[in-house]
């Protein structure tokens, strides 16, 4: 895909995410929109050996979405890639749905890990990555974390483990969108310099703009080529709600009502972006 096509795909992820949340009238819109670009890069070339028709394909690259509440953005991406029909999206959170609010590997084709209690995903990624190494597999494991999420101590337990066992088939991604439920990350518990923190834990760290698709692509390449025997981490310097101005500008945009009026406003903006590409 060309960069322009990738940008269109990312816009489609945002459009389908908004529609999906509108169907449920509420949802985690801020942290969904902020990962649309990295999901686009992951599912259009970065994740190797994946197959929408065979979601459990052996030796595929795997993604743990540790910030499990971003499920709707992941579902939108998977649907756009053909893992399941787009018309599943409006069933989000309905009784008996295949698409619960938080990522669930049992219910949803293409989801590699069940998450929802924050802070646990990096350990799961460790397990995938370490097992792959023990079995001499070449697949790589990605773990997408929220910035507020890394306030959880388990993340740092996992970070030490990944370094100790030289999990250089592991790539962490931190969605540094600066906000959590109760305010900005700095108002709650400041993370200071996330990349430096990971470096201090023995990781190879790169920071890029969270909505810069080309930079994200290059960063993954840079990590792969330079991480040596270390786990790598990509810090996405972004904005919560990115790509939709009216959401970006909200003070609190973690989990909000998404009525028709707001959805229409978002969709109008996104359609204009798409048409301009």
């Amino acid at each position, binding site marked *: 895909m060309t960069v322009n096509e990738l940008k269109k795909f990312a816009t489609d992820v945002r459009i389908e995410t908004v529609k999906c949340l509108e169907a449920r009238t509420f949802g985690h819109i801020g942290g969904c929109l902020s990962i649309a670009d990295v999901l686009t890069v992951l599912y259009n070339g970065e994740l190797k050996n994946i197959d929408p028709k065979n979601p459990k394909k052996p030796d595929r690259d795997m993604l743990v979405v540790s910030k499990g509440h971003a499920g709707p953005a992941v579902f939108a991406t998977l649907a756009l890639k053909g893992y399941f029909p787009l018309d599943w999206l409006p069933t989000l959170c309905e009784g008996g749905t295949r698409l619960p609010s938080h990522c669930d590997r049992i219910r949803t084709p293409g989801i590699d890990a*069940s998450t929802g209690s924050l802070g646990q995903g990096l350990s799961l990624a460790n*397990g995938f990555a370490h097992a792959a190494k023990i079995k001499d597999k070449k697949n790589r494991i990605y773990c997408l974390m929220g910035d507020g999420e890394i306030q959880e101590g388990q993340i740092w337990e996992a970070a030490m483990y990944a370094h100790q066992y030289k999990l250089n088939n592991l790539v962490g991604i931190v969605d540094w969108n600066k906000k959590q439920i109760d305010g900005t990350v700095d108002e709650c518990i400041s993370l200071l310099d996330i990349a430096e923190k990971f470096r201090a834990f023995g990781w190879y760290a790169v920071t890029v703009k969270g909505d810069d698709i080309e930079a994200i692509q290059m960063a993954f390449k840079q990590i792969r080529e330079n991480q040596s025997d270390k786990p790598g981490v990509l810090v996405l310097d972004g904005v919560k709600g990115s790509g939709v101005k009216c959401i970006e500008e909200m003070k609190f945009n973690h989990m909000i009502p998404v009525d028709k009026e707001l959805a229409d406003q978002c969709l109008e903006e996104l359609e204009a972006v798409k048409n301009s590409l």
Partner: protein
Amino acid sequence: MVKTIYNGEYEKKAITDQFVENLGEMLEKDTDVIYLDADLMFAFGAGLWELGDKFPKRVIRCGIAEANMVGTAAAMSVMGMKPIIHSFASFVTRRAFDQIFLSGAYGRKTLNIIGSEPGYKQTYWGGTHMAFEDIAMMRTVPNAYIFDIVDGVQFNKLLKKTIDMQGIYYYRTPLADNIAVYDETSEFEIGKGIVLKEGTDATIIACGRLVTISLQAAELLEKEEIHVRVVDMFTIKPLDEELVKKCAEETGAIVTAENHSVYGGLGSAVAEYLGENDPTVVERIGVRDEFGEVGSEEYLRGRFGFIPEKIAKRVKEAIAKKKA
């Protein structure tokens, strides 16, 4: 079928040595078996470190980080590995319960969890280390299996079975001074209690460390012509409801005995079943609403009523209630 060798003596080969030998065989035979520990390999002795030297890729030191150990091991099972993880019963359950629940059970992963030195077995490490609530917590995890271990034969035979099964298996495992109950030829059926002594006046349904103490209580009662059945209910979940019902109907009074709180453990499981299906006199022996504390095993057994004389007294009370 089980064969019992109970005569009040300790196991000749310690449970820890039996485990190291068993784990060595499993690691040798099956390249998917992996052992992870949160800085308590020491509890099993030097043999485990030697296994670490022999199988450096599959004997994993996770450091003092139980939550990460649980999640990492659970994910390994998705990749086809067969994880066994260990810490003290208190730390592996209380500290990492959300990880067992979500990263493990909810994600339909497999874990063989060894929670060692449960309850009063922590003796001199005291109340901070004493798990009297781990069964209660683990019973609420859907589809989890819970074993309260009597001796090394039972532990290792069960582990040999569950290592090839899928799901969450929690082993409450005392690591020293286990009185031998089972011959090494025994085979155990998961979810089926074992009648160790027949009797008609009442049944003691015990688990783990309380099984042999209950046998001693039954011996005391025999001297008074009171004939008590003793059951080793080593699988607490799923409970052998059929056997509970049979004992209730045939003996009319049930006494449960466990190295655990009476809230949520074996006693609760038995009483819940009987309350719903076959109301019967039930006396529950276990820790009441209190914390553990330091002391010798002898002191703590007395402190919590885990001695034959006290159990015998509770049995007589149960029989009296039955008659009333």
